[in-house]
């Protein structure tokens, strides 16, 4: 397995396990057709330029939200699925670069963008699929690889 594969897997599993107490497994195939999903993208600015995006079913987002914010205390706002997705991607992106780059290598990432325009299929695009509970979701990287 390549270093980049390991970095993606660790970033995704660490994020979902620590944030939502959810076990995540890599799977070879993506979503079955017919699932409604939401997508977010985030740019890497330094030291390399690229983009990471996540596509996730709304049902899985709802499950994650329920796990994290199921019983809000007084005065506590429950975030929207869009906000939750943006923060998931932000966290995965940071963990990914921490895994991939040397510890003394500074890096800079952008802000998450929801519903980004579709990516062109290029040679440098790679997608990883994951399963959490009964749902599948995907992470794609472009220009970094």
């Amino acid at each position, binding site marked *: 397995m390549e270093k980049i594969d390991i970095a993606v897997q660790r970033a995704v599993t660490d994020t979902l396990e*620590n944030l939502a107490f959810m076990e995540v497994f890599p799977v070879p195939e993506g979503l079955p057709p017919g699932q409604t999903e939401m997508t977010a993208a985030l740019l890497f600015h330094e030291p390399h330029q690229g983009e990471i995006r996540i596509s996730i079913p709304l049902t899985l987002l709802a499950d994650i939200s329920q796990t994290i*914010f199921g019983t809000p205390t007084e005065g*506590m*706002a429950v975030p929207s699925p869009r906000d939750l997705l943006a923060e998931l991607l932000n966290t995965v992106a*940071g963990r990914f670069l*921490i895994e991939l780059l040397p510890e003394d290598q500074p890096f800079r990432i952008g802000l998450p963008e929801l519903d980004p325009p579709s990516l062109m299929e290029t040679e440098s695009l790679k997608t990883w699929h994951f399963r959490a509970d009964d749902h599948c979701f995907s992470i794609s990287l472009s220009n970094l690889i």
Partner: protein
Amino acid sequence: MQRVVIADDSQTARTFIRRCLEIIGLADANFVEVENGREALAQVKEAETDLLVTDLNMPVMNGEMLLKWIKGSPKLCHLKVLVITSAGNAAKESELMKLGACGVLRKPVSPAALSQKLNWLFA
């Protein structure tokens, strides 16, 4: 009652951090949530604050700039600033500590990690 300002452009992050802080013993604190460094600066100027928890990557004013403003102000330089970020490796953590942060944690944060960094709050 302790006053805690949480600065993060993500409602998810703010709510998660607040929940973790409540778990480690700050359930009775007065939490003020803001979306960027500029709003955080206004809030810590407005009232005595025990702790500022901030993200790094925010629009308008980022967390690093907020930290520099606070540590450069004679009135605010005593304020404890904890940075919680997804964009922090050892190099960044060292830089932020030199700027005056009382701690740096990587997202996703946990109650245990927060408790370790904030043990002075309960002394």
